[in-house]
């Protein structure tokens, strides 16, 4: 159908268009492919999964074509979760389920099978013998989780636009280490060091922002092509 060279030369918009044409769930949403519709509004569509984990397994689709969650704007994310809550409630009432699992797979490695973002709602019963949603427990080394904690907190603060006041930490450190006498002698040197540190941190911040943007684009393109290559042999 489309050669790899052609794929490489396509603009992101063209690639998305091509994906929409190949996407089975976009066909379901437009009505070209039949499905058992449970709920529909202007943003989302809920259908019954034809390969259900349990009777009543529902796929909640966003009508717009998105592959993964980070691409979806906030208002659509919050809408799909509110609908998921209502449908979960419907499962409890209509199917007399004893619980529900709401599940999202983001990326092929996470078990996503189609390049269209969806949310699974699976009614559960005590005796249904589905064990995949019982999470195991593992021992994670403390220093490792501390590292993760620091890294994620910084990034999330950046995403939410919360400013962290790092210079304060630099001011505190010398006081703890040096005595008062040392301070008088080395004050100039320490001040210089401080300035250098602040400069370095600022440089790193700027570099980080740049690289993040570049990474974003490259990750998306890789995924787009991966999905298409994966999809083609099936057809």
């Amino acid at each position: 159908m489309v050669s790899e060279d052609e794929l490489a030369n396509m603009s992101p918009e063209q690639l998305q268009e091509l994906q929409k044409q190949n996407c089975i769930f976009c066909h379901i949403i437009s009505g070209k492919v039949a499905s058992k519709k449970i709920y529909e509004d202007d943003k989302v569509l809920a259908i019954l999964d034809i390969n259900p984990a349990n009777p009543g397994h529902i796929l909640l689709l966003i009508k717009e074509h998105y592959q993964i969650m980070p691409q979806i704007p906030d208002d659509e994310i919050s809408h799909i979760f509110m609908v998921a809550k209502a449908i979960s409630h419907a499962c409890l009432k209509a199917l007399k389920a004893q619980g529900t699992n709401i599940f999202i797979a983001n990326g092929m490695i996470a078990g996503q099978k189609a390049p269209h973002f969806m949310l699974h709602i699976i009614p559960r019963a005590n005796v249904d013998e589905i064990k995949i949603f019982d999470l195991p427990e593992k021992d994670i080394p403390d220093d490792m989780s501390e590292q993760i904690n620091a890294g994620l907190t910084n990034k999330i603060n950046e995403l939410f636009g919360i400013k962290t006041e790092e210079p304060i930490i630099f001011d505190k450190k010398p006081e703890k280490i040096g005595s008062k006498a040392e301070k008088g002698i080395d004050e100039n040197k320490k001040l210089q060091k401080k300035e250098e540190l602040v400069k370095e941190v600022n440089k790193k911040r700027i570099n980080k922002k740049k690289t993040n943007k570049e990474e974003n684009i490259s990750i998306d393109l890789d995924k787009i092509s991966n999905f298409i290559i994966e999809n083609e042999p099936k057809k």
Partner: protein
Amino acid sequence: MNQKNNCEFCQIVNKEKDAKKIFEDEKALAILSPNPCCAGHILVMPKEHFSIIEQVPDYLIAHLSKITNKISIAIFEVLQAKGTNMLIQNGVAAGQKSNHFMIHIIPRKENDGFDFQWQPKQLNEEQMSTIELKLKEETKGIGDFEKEEKKPVMLDKKIEKIDKEENYLVKQLNRIP
């Protein structure tokens, strides 16, 4: 009340118990799981105690989902994850272990030992149709989502404004010789 007092996560919210916090605002809290299933396993929860998703108000769900999305972006970039799984266990039958509602975020990498694949169950056309009809009946009412009551905030702002106006007037009075 008993449920709240014994709840491990309410204790974390109230700072009676330590946890590695990732994000916090007035309504929500995100922490590294105290019982992780992998490195970087994150829990996003409302600060108020709810057992299941049906009890959580719509606007709070919306708020939590936005935070979840932002955290999943951060996971992709910081932990170099190749994918993420989000999971809500709603009810003991669904694997829920704590009675505080939460959203699990699980970073995924190649060969990490997780398998969220289910064995498809075979249902005949008739069974599918009855499920469809039953569910459709219950989803008719979906659409009116609860919005957060913003009245208290409005009142606070008005009071501030009045205060400022009064101060302004008082100042003006002082200026008159």
